[in-house]
């Protein structure tokens, strides 16, 4: 009986069960054995499960809720071997997530000077430069402006790089993308409050972190859809996401959505900060480098089945993943299950939102033979997600940022899923 149940399990659940079994073994030591095998069936039909035989935890036992203890393996993913962790990143566990919204605790993070602990009562935003009236705002001030909420993805510029080793899992590979509902005030309203001078062309944004991270934003973007965000998925920003207020630029590389925002400097030209010259520029094989390359182009990844998972048995398996484009809405996602020879349209989850993650799904019957599966996104501009080979031919391996390549997964006859390009 238990083998039948296992074959119904999706690979993620099976992975989690193995993780928990290992954890229990480490804690319980010698208790495992015949008793453990019996315990596995005690709660299964026709028996009455133990959690129905006594009341559960009292209401309010957790005043800020956390996931089930059985989900403790679903956490952000960070390399254990970084040289330092002050300027570093951790990734969303994309392969364990459903839908399009990333839970706040699993949203990817990238910091350049650690995570500051800012008292919102002592935080100020100064708006100055080429404005009629330099202004200073408290957090209460910013929350008095008309508010709006929008769902957008945020993606780190380098997600992933162009050279090996490539990641094993979807999270290792492209886990520096997440999506949330953002609430705040349109930056346009705040700029109008100060009044722009005629020669205003750029806005230099600066964070109140130990990096005082600084990026120059074209004024057109500031007036188009930029926001000053104070809430994420309904609650105040987490410190890792810029509490108490961050800039948010839909579709632009994540580094520009400056967190812990303390200053907006309206200027006639970019400031050419270290983060837009020494870093976040794209080096081409001929020695020239592209600067001010803001947009994240259309991209997709199959998150299930994906690297590190295992198909338990031949038969029905849904293929699902996420697609997104900095240039607007996803128009189509095509999936190939035959190593790129043929492609079919996946179903897109409604609503399809501009500059937001879009969930796609394709029903599939695995015949038990080795297969290579992959997805490619097409956005509303008609842009088609390229292959890694196509990108490398133009950009070379030292380009580093803005890699939006199609990424295939290889499925072995054992059902093991691995990175087909690794």
């Amino acid at each position, binding site marked *: 009986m238990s083998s039948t149940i296992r074959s119904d399990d999706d690979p993620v659940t099976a992975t989690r069960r193995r993780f928990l079994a290992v954890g229990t073994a480490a804690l319980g030591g010698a208790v495992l054995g015949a008793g453990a095998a019996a315990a596995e069936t005690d709660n299964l039909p026709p028996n009455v499960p133990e959690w129905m035989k006594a009341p559960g935890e009292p209401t309010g036992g957790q005043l800020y809720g956390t996931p089930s203890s059985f989900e403790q393996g679903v956490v952000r993913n960070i390399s254990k071997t970084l*040289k*330092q962790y*002050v*300027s570093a990143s951790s990734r969303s566990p994309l392969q364990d997530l459903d839908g399009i919204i990333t839970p706040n605790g699993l949203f990817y993070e990238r910091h*350049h*000077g650690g995570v500051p602990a800012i008292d919102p009562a002592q935080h100020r935003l*100064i*708006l*100055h430069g080429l404005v009629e*009236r*330099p*202004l*200073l*705002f408290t957090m209460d*001030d910013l929350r*008095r*402006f008309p508010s709006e909420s929008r769902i957008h993805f945020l993606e780190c510029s380098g997600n992933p790089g162009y050279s090996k080793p490539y990641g094993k899992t979807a999270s290792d590979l492209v886990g520096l993308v997440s999506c949330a509902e953002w609430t705040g005030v349109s930056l346009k*309203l705040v700029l*109008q*409050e*100060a*009044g722009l001078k005629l020669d205003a062309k750029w806005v*230099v944004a*600066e964070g109140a972190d*130990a*990096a*005082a*991270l*600084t990026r120059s934003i074209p004024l057109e973007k500031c007036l188009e859809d930029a926001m000053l965000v104070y809430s994420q998925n309904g609650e105040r920003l987490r410190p890792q996401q810029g509490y108490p207020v961050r800039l948010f630029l839909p579709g632009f590389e994540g580094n520009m959505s400056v967190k812990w925002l*303390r200053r907006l*400097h309206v*200027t006639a*030209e970019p*400031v*050419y*900060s*270290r983060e837009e*010259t*020494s870093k976040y*520029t*794209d*080096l081409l*094989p001929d*020695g*020239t*480098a*592209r*600067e*001010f*390359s803001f*947009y994240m*182009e259309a991209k997709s990844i199959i998150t299930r089945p994906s690297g590190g998972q295992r198909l338990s048995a031949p038969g029905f398996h849904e293929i699902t993943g996420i697609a997104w484009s900095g240039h607007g809405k996803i128009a189509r996602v095509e999936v190939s299950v035959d190593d790129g020879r043929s492609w079919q349209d996946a179903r897109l989850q409604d609503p399809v939102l501009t500059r937001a993650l879009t969930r796609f799904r394709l029903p599939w019957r695995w015949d038990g033979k080795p297969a290579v599966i992959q997805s490619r996104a097409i956005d509303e501009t008609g*842009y*088609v997600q*390229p292959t890694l080979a*196509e*990108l490398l031919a*133009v950009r070379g391996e*030292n380009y580093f940022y*803005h890699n939006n390549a199609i990424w295939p997964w290889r499925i072995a006859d054992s059902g093991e899923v691995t990175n087909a390009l690794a």
Partner: protein
Amino acid sequence: MHWREIFGVAIAIAVCGFATGAQSQTPYGIGRSATAAEIAGWNIDVGRDGSNLPRGRGSVSRGREVYAQQCASCHGDKGEGGLGDRLVGGQGTIGTPKPIRTVGSYWPYAPTLFDYIRRAMPQNAPQSLSDEDVYAVSAYVLNLNGLLDADATLDATSLAAIKMPNRDKFVGDARPDVKK
């Protein structure tokens, strides 16, 4: 501080009174005027042309001392890198298969060096160095890269006058670069 900003604040005070000036003119009347002193204290942006660089100066020799105390533990005794980025060398490698990106080989504008060191370095105590010491460390790093003489002293004018070797190698964003 630009003279027009000071002048603008003065006008606002004269015409409207300081407390109510912003509120009577703006669409929502939210926020208050930022004072010149508040802006000056926070505006640490240095333009690529050296605009907004502070007064003061620092020598390569003083920079060598500051670097040894504040920088070498992460960036190496001679800027060869470690926990922190490599700062020195790599000139001539940028267009090769193994580019070495450093201040000397890759950074397009010398004033950015002052801007970044002042705002973010040393990583364990940013904005703790005096402007003079930021000039001095900038001078030393430029000296290690062969871009400044060992007996030189750097100030706003001389820093802005340094032409970085890679300055003309930056181009606009040509994407989409893979078209179907």
